[in-house]
């Protein structure tokens, strides 16, 4: 079936199967920043923004996304570059596999929460797993980003 999506501000039409997930649709169409880390919605690596809200694209049926606005990290280059700067300063990016999903979720959090506490930040991002960083550098970087921005 054909679905219409607005991906990173561009109107797109994709041909998808009824049981196809958004993650696969996006990767197939070269949005390779969206990645798979697990089989059952538990790692957060595949996060995209759907109408501005973070969602796991691995368990979101593409047909359900028809008519919606999808943002991948390619759609927020300025914010991603800024966040990358803070991550870089804290040595918070290691393998980088989780990075695009982190940038998107942090970006969404900044819009949603006003002056989040340490615990608010941890709760908001709890579904975004990272096996490399031990989370500390990320936490320092996110706080610095929120302070400056």
């Amino acid at each position, binding site marked *: 079936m054909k679905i219409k999506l607005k991906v990173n501000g561009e109107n797109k039409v994709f041909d998808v199967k009824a049981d196809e997930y958004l993650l696969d649709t996006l990767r197939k169409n070269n*949005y*390779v*920043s969206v*990645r*798979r*880390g*697990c*089989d*059952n919605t*538990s*790692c957060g*690596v595949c996060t995209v923004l759907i109408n501005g809200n973070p969602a796991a694209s691995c368990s979101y049926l593409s047909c359900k996304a028809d008519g919606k606005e999808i943002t*991948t*990290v*390619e759609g927020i*280059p300025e914010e*991603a*570059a800024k*966040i*990358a*700067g803070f*991550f*870089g*300063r*804290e*040595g*918070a*990016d*290691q*393998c*980088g*596999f*989780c*990075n*695009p999903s*982190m*940038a998107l979720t942090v970006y969404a959090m900044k819009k949603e929460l006003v002056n989040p506490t340490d615990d608010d930040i*941890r*709760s908001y*991002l*709890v579904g*975004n*797993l*990272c*096996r*490399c*960083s*031990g*989370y*500390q*550098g*990320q*936490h320092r970087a996110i706080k610095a980003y929120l302070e400056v921005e």
Partner: protein
Amino acid sequence: MMKYVNYERPSIDGKGLMMGKPGYTDDLAEQNSLIVKVLRSPHAFARIKSIDKSKAEALEGVELVLTHEDFKRIPVTRAGQGYPEPSPHDKFVLDNYVRHVGDEVAAVAARDKETAEKALELLVVDYEVLEPVLDFEKAYENEVIIHDEPEIHEMFPIGFEPKKNVAASYLMHIGDVEKSLKECDTVTETTFYTQAQAHVMMEPHTVNARIDYQGRLVLYSSTQTPFHTRRIVAQALEYPMSKIRVIKPRVGGGFGGKQCVHGEMLVSAVTLRTGKPSKMVYTRQEVFESTFSRHPMRFDIKLGAMKDGTLKAIDVEVLSDTGAYGEHALTVFMVAGSKVFPLYNKVDSVRFGGKVVYTNRTPAGAFRGYGAIQGNYALESAVDILCDKLKVDPVEFRQKNMIREGETSPIFEIMGEGTEGIAMTMETCKLDYCVKRGMELIDWKNKYPRKDMGNGKVRGVGMAIAMQGSGIPYIDMGSALIKLNDDGFFNLLVGATDIGQGSDTILAQIAAESLRVHPDEIVVYSSDSDLTPFDVGAYASSTTYVSGNAVKRAADRMKQMIIEEGALALKVPVEGTDFDGMTISHGDKSISLKDLSNRLYYNEDQKQLVAVDSYVGTKSPPPFMAGFAEVEVDTETGHVELIDYAAVVDCGTTISPNLAKGQVEGGLVQGIGMTLYEDVVYSKTGKMITNSMMTYRIPTRKEIRSLKVEFADSYETSGPYGAKSVGEIGIDSPPAAITNAIFNAVGVRIKSLPVTGEKILTGIQKSRQKGEKQ
């Protein structure tokens, strides 16, 4: 004064990856790749009587079906190690036996995932289901023999006795342990168990293959060992190594889990046979069930000491479970001794030995710490037990008995990795500082041993010291090539394997330091078996020290070449000519690097400047650390919360302090995970229950509240600009430090990992009953 070493610089790839640039293996697969899927064994142990692949082959869209009948029987090891490997050659690309749930039965290559999956369902396999060996304590000399194939073999003596289910065995001793134990005032004897741990790197194992325009097989692989991968694939498929190119793109984490080949052999076979590009992306379930995890171990450890708190004897017997195949069996086992027991170098005697046995479980392999985390847990827990018995302070006991700068341990000479070791003296060992500083950071004086918080909660602090290594001396080789380009910038080509730890970044810094040019002027490419020089890969904490030394040597050479060419251009003697990173000068004559480069490539005395060098360690200077944990134990539920963890590390110079800190923090959290949360659990029939990220829980950012990581001031002259390695040391101390803290809080000694509320409650009840009886 160092300019670009010990210098904060963001990693060279972090920003690009954050912005979503393609870089990982699957981003670089050919669009029309055949999808390779593997049929995996539902049985822990079975013989394949027959496979009917006709229906699968007939399915529209299926290109190829491979079974064991399609391969010549060539045993290899999937472990990416030096060659000849210290691991038994006990694995075939496909075999007519399956030895664990998830083992490979057959492979299908089809035009898309759905077709490949459908084809797997159409394969008809007739199994003779065999009785598996699931308990590693019953594996030795069990009547069930897991590896009975005639072709399998060891490459040199490693104690391989497959008929007894033994993949490797080892025994060493220094002094007479029996005698010294008899002379001791106090002897403790304890048994500890460590569990299997899964790596859970975020990027699953991924590989793709294509035939390029020269007819060569090109693999992109998410691997820690591209050069070993090329060698093993060539061996397994009897295909010339000269026709294989292995490219390691960005890798989404490894931690040892990618120090091996997995899909590479099958994907290569598919592409070679079909001539078409193919790819394989492991599902998370496959990563759990069908790659590797950490070797579970049992330690029977005896420590003997005098009343005054002098440690005299260490006697350890270890049983290690390598699962269905023997990858890294011997070497992980040996590191459980060689990178643990030198911590207490003043003892009269040490005995260390035991076996690594096969079972019908997911194979064990390399995992950060590589035996040292298991050994450290046993030793550092046993030390606290001993201190409790002797009524001596555990910190003072360590300060009295631990290794110090300028000292050595006879273990270094006796134990290497699979072979004999190398005698070495600790040129740098700041353990003393690490311990003192760690006490301050955790506020030991005010918190040791415990504080009752009321409301049924008790806090306690505990500590442990740890060591690792920096590469494997006389075995691990790294090399580097530096090329000067017109306009005066450089390429640095290294075999070293950046898997997210940031080695490309820090190796560029080392080159920059030597050349005195800004790191931005050094463009790094790593790990392409056709284009970059050799390196063993990312393991054994070797990159900073071994590959870093190679880079420094090559860069020093390049600097000398620039000086010589500059002198020629300026018509002055080489002596007295200098290069400061921008300009080559002699007295009042000078030429900029840019002008010199352009002259070299376009105008006069034309030639390409290339410097290449390599490095093999003659020793493996250990990084050291002291870890301090503060826990809060809920005596009603047994729940443990980690309140704080302080780690002070001596890894020599930190080339990039931030990246080094990230290594330690990441290692600590994996160690904390192994201590408190992570466990690979099997059903009674040998099926892994924890085969998803829902059932196997790694720490989230909610559990990790406070980590304090600091570095000791330390300069190892044998390392590049004073550096030792730092990749593994962070993981080693949490199991012992946290369980020691739990003991100090509630008097319960955790003898098997992970810590669970149940173990704590049972312990509390036992000690209450004891108390009532008295």
